[in-house]
């Protein structure tokens, strides 16, 4: 009886099933070649009379003849459960549910059994495929190299350094013509060289020359390299030529000031790719909980990094401390790591501009950033 409606109708007549099952076990020779259905029915009867071991045998025969029978799998689960073999029971119930997601009983049994520890089933070893062999060798080599503690501190081993602006976008320009894009690129290079000398942190640049990259491409590069931190380097500017000092931005749920909110709103207006997240009622999406947890955690870490960097700037650079600011930057929101944006000095201020021209001052900035990373 392959027809599932027929089978369900039949299932409603459990009494019938037991009767037929016991009839079959009494007179097995009455029957021509037994079908999967016959064996399953026999199994059902044996379960009813608590002969679980025999039931297992009959049901395995049923499954052998018809591996798509969710009914037989469900019964097999019950038989194993009767024997106290929880792991096997769960395995059988899972197969039943996979074959028929509407099998309430099997689902419920999985839920009930797996509330508590279930012993593990032995796994069959099988030969490794070529990629698996390669992977195994790679893993052995790596595990000898990487020593990790169980510490929950956020780890930074690879960073992406983003030199702001570039190409047709010069960024801000100083009173004597110094361009933000040139200073940021030089700082990025210097920082990378320094980090490579120290050797602990791997770094990647979003651009290595004078060309324009859209903001979206820059965060993509951070994802490309699976970076642990994204540092975007900028030089500030203001209509007021007296404005000076350094400040650090990061992404957060709430803007720290009206000005920060305005900056974020401007950035956000460009991108309209994702539909806003719609809350599904009556459903718990665990991956969504994890996603949100991850996001908030990166924002918190970004804030922590921003404060650390700003503190280093305050103590190491002759620049006024303009503090840490945050806002909801949409582009940074989906970055898979903490990200901060440094505004080091005002190119529009002639004192700051003069400093920024000097290689020695640039090295000082690099010093401060490196200290912020350690």
């Amino acid at each position, binding site marked *: 009886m392959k027809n599932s409606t027929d089978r369900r109708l039949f299932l409603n007549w459990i009494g019938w099933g037991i009767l037929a099952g016991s009839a079959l076990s009494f007179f097995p020779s009455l029957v021509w070649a037994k079908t999967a259905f016959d064996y399953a029915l026999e199994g059902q009867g044996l379960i009813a009379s608590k002969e679980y071991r025999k039931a297992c045998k009959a049901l395995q025969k049923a499954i052998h003849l018809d591996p798509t029978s969710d009914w037989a799998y469900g019964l097999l689960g019950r038989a194993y459960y009767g024997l106290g073999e929880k792991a096997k029971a769960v395995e059988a119930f899972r197969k039943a549910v996979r074959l028929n997601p509407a099998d309430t*009983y099997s*689902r419920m049994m999985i839920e009930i059994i797996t*509330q*508590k520890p279930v012993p593990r089933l032995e796994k069959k070893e099988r030969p490794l495929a070529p990629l698996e062999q390669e992977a195994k060798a*790679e893993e052995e080599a790596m595990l000898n190299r990487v020593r990790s503690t169980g510490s929950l501190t956020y780890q930074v081993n690879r960073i992406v350094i983003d030199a702001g602006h570039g190409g047709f976008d010069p960024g801000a320009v100083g009173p004597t013509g110094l361009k933000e894009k040139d200073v940021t690129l030089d700082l990025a290079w210097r920082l990378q060289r320094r980090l490579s000398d120290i050797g602990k942190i791997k770094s990647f640049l979003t651009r290595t020359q004078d060309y324009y990259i859209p903001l979206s*491409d820059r965060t993509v590069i951070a994802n490309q390299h699976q970076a642990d931190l994204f540092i975007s380097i900028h030089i500030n500017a203001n209509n007021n030529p007296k404005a000076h000092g350094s400040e650090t931005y990061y992404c957060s749920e709430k803007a720290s000031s009206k000005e920060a909110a305005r900056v974020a709103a401007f950035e956000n207006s460009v991108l309209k790719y994702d539909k806003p997240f719609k809350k599904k009622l009556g459903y718990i999406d665990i991956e969504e909980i994890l996603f949100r947890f991850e996001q908030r955690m990166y924002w918190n870490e970004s804030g922590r990094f921003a404060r650390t960097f700003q503190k280093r700037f305050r103590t190491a650079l002759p620049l006024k401390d303009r503090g840490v600011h945050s806002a909801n930057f949409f582009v940074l929101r989906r970055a898979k790591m903490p990200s901060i944006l440094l505004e080091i000095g005002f190119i529009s201020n002639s004192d700051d501009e003069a400093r920024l021209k000097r290689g020695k001052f640039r090295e000082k900035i690099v010093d401060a950033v490196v200290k912020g990373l350690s």
Partner: protein
Amino acid sequence: MILRFLATVTLIPLLCFASPKFAKALDVNDLIFRGADYHYKGDLDHAIKQFREAVRIEPENEYAHNQLGILYAKKGRFKEAFLEFQKVVEIDHQNTYALLWLGILYLRENDLKRAFDKFQEIVRIDPNNADAYYFLGTIYNFRHNPAKAIEYLKKARDADSDEPDTHYRLARAFHNLDMTSNALLEYQKTLELKPNYTKAINGIGWIYYNQGRIDMAIKEWKKTLAINPRDRDAIFNLTKAYNDLAWKALREKDIKRAVFYWKETLAINPKNKAALYYLKRYKSR
């Protein structure tokens, strides 16, 4: 995740569920069946009613309390959910299901430390608990501690190899350590279990891209777009790939090829500022 797989559901026939305690237990079992049935049908309010009645008759029924916990969580009543799971743990500390949900609710509250402790408690009780290993590994992934993430996610994978999310997160951890063979293998296993897992396809794209196999990377990201034309990651990855190719062509003074790639960029992302600008500048030449 086994859990999520159980959290969505439908109905169908109910069979008998034997219990040694007769009259009283029969009522409770009946209520539980009906509760589960309503729950699977999506009728949360009626399900809650059944399970509440069940715990009124049998206050120590762990399954009913756990179900109430899930149902309250689904209704957004997280405080009540928390109390139900807490109750189960008071009845029996070995109930790892309730412990797991307590951990998840702590994660929801952003409480990393408490969540982490709960998951660790579970693996101490049950060294085969794939779900707890999954969360522990995932937390280490979030802390960008790939070596530890690998350690736990491998245990999750070995305890239950059928979860695409486990393979995907394991792939991410390997990828973060530049262990590309392992990353590729786990991305592939993710896709064997769930062929439209676009994040895994995008990850494979980056492995190829960073190996200099740009054409293969582009193919992967286009696969993603065939599944979801609005996949933000694939759009931006392709945009970056084409812009890079254009920039390389320009440096080699092959303007015709550069123009070709900028056009490709715009075909995928019409607002890309770089391609718009450079195309305008070089198209006429």
